[in-house]
């Protein structure tokens, strides 16, 4: 005797319900409990919510919750092959890119990599102090034998952040030119930004095999591309209306206006977006070690799994150092842009 029997009896649906009752349906926890004979008296206080499971008890034709999750899974699996068929070839270059960049970073000897990074940092920031700081951090990481892992992490961030900028800036520009596109895109961006990173991984794991680099590549890009899109859109929309009007009054074409006025004036905001994108790539690359992304995250994971406190903490420190380096370098590049076009 289930709580909600009266509903179906009252509506004259008993026959319909009983046709759905198949004795060998999945056994629910409630069924098992009922079998143990512990039957409480029904009062208003313990009235169960009319959930799917509860209704199923009263009427066998109503599906159980587990049928719902099963259905979602089945429909995803049914769509999976079609999705794979489309997505696999499109995303394959990402795998190649990640693999080859990783092998280049790994194959380059440290005595070439160090000066190279120093030069890059100098040209980004034009600050000798920052170069010294970055070199000291790298030397420390290399000294405690974390150099290889750090380079792997850096390689992944390099590829993913680059792709974020390559796709994010044009999307942001398109958004800034069309209010409709902006209205349609913002909910998607909100969703990408609020979903916990773990949730991205679930459908991706089913779509691609866990050993493929593109799996974590896609996860990182989806997660990190949001700020660069948002800030490109914002930056272009914030360009002084008077300056745009002047550009129009001198007969600039849309192209001249975009590349000669809007993008240069939006550059501080775009750079701020790139900075955030890089930081978010770093955060995600650590999580992505769950799905075979190499780098410092692997060591952290080892620390957690094997309860090796020291390994976890030292590699954690390595990540912090990497984060500081990336943040400082991009910020000082941003400051230079800002200083160059102070109003």
């Amino acid at each position: 005797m289930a709580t909600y029997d009266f509903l179906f009896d009252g509506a004259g649906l008993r026959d319909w319900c009983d046709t759905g009752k198949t004795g060998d349906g999945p056994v629910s926890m409630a069924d098992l409990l009922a079998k143990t004979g512990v039957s409480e008296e029904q009062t208003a206080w313990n009235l169960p919510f009319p959930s799917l499971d509860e209704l199923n008890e009263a009427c066998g034709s109503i599906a159980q919750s587990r049928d719902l999750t099963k259905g979602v899974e089945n429909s995803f699996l049914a769509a999976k092959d079609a999705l794979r068929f489309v997505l696999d070839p499109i995303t394959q270059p990402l795998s190649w890119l990640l693999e080859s960049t990783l092998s280049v970073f790994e194959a380059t000897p440290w005595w070439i990599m160090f000066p190279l990074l120093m030069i890059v940092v100098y040209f980004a920031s034009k600050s000798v102090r920052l170069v010294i700081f970055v070199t000291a951090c790298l030397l420390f990481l290399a000294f405690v034998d974390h150099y290889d892992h750090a380079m792997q992490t850096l390689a992944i961030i390099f590829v993913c952040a680059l792709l974020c900028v390559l796709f994010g800036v044009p999307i942001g520009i398109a958004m800034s030119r069309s209010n409709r596109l902006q209205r349609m895109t913002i909910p998607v961006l909100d969703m990408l930004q609020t979903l916990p990173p773990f949730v991205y991984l679930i459908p991706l794991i089913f779509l691609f095999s866990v050993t493929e680099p593109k799996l974590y590549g896609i996860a990182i890009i989806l997660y990190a591309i949001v700020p660069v899109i948002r800030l490109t859109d914002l930056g272009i929309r914030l360009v002084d209306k008077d300056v745009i009007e002047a550009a129009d009054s001198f007969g600039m074409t849309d192209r001249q206006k975009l590349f000669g006025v809007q993008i240069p004036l939006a550059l501080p905001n775009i750079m701020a977006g790139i900075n955030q994108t890089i930081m978010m790539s770093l955060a995600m690359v650590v999580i992505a070690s769950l799905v075979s992304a190499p780098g410092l995250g692997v060591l952290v994971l080892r620390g957690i799994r094997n309860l090796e406190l020291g390994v976890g903490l030292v590699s954690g420190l390595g990540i912090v150092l990497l984060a500081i380096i990336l943040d400082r370098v991009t910020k000082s590049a941003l400051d230079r842009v800002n200083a160059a076009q102070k109003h």
Partner: protein
Amino acid sequence: MTDKIEISIRNLYKIFGPDPKSALEYVYAGTSKADLLNDHGHVLGLRDINIDMRDGDITVIMGLSGSGKSTLIRHLNRLIEPTAGQVEVDGEDVLAYDEEKLRTLRRQVMSMVFQKFALFPHRTVAENAGTTLKVRGVAKHDYLKEAHKWLDRVGLQGYGDHYPHQLSGGMQQRVGIARALTSNSPIMLMDEAFSALDPLIRTDMQDLLLELQKELHKTIVFITHDLDEALKLADRLVILKDGHIVQQGEPQYILLNPNDPYIEDFVSDINRARVLRVSSIMTPLDDSGVPPDAHGEVAHDDTLESMITRSGGDTSHSYLVMRDGQPVGTLEMTSLVKALVPRVASEAGARKY
């Protein structure tokens, strides 16, 4: 100065709002700006504007803030599209232009100077001044050369490599003027170009503009809310109020014959002795020939102020007015003194406020 009409505006209407076309019917029927806003939710920008601007003239459009001056000047290069009416430049219907022709118009025929300067902050002064040539695809070396020439001309020698934010407001607007001049366009549009500047610097800039104009003879449309500035610069004055023209004509004529209390208000605070010229208040010579009792000869464009000094304040004097060496009229000091007092609007036949 020729009598050729360079810019001609005919029956121009502009209404801002979601459905300007149907709101236009109400305006044709005589609905006022306030009623249009309250009852129909549309803003009346311009109502029935008709102006002819002569080649080589400085036409000044004056009005209080919100009277539609910026809206009007932006119709000339179609930064704003009209709701109804015609705009002709050099005999061609600008409103019929396609995108390509419009771009050519903006690049080669009209250049604009803005109230807030609107320089490109990320480009040097010389690059800013060369913008108008750069958009036409002129090579960098050539447009910088031309830019430097005009920067020198507006008094900015040696500032080419500075950035705009390193210059004062007055200097920034000189860059704005150099930028417009570099395009070598026959028409210059200036929207409150000097309004953001300090009074002394503003005077300098006005002098600079007059000096340049003496040499270049451009057709200039100049917008201001300042009557002193308008009277100093204008060959022809157009006075706007709530989107329509209240009076237009020779500035001296408007000063002496304001046809509306609105203009009376404007002109009552003016130092008339400094602004009015002898030719505006003289009695033209008739057939009776040169009167014998004149105290001397004066030039037709002397100000009344200089005449008061010259006569030593004696109102019994009269003078012979000369233009190009020929006598053209006589000036009684008594009529000069009368002209110093603004006429009351009701006497001038003006109507309701």
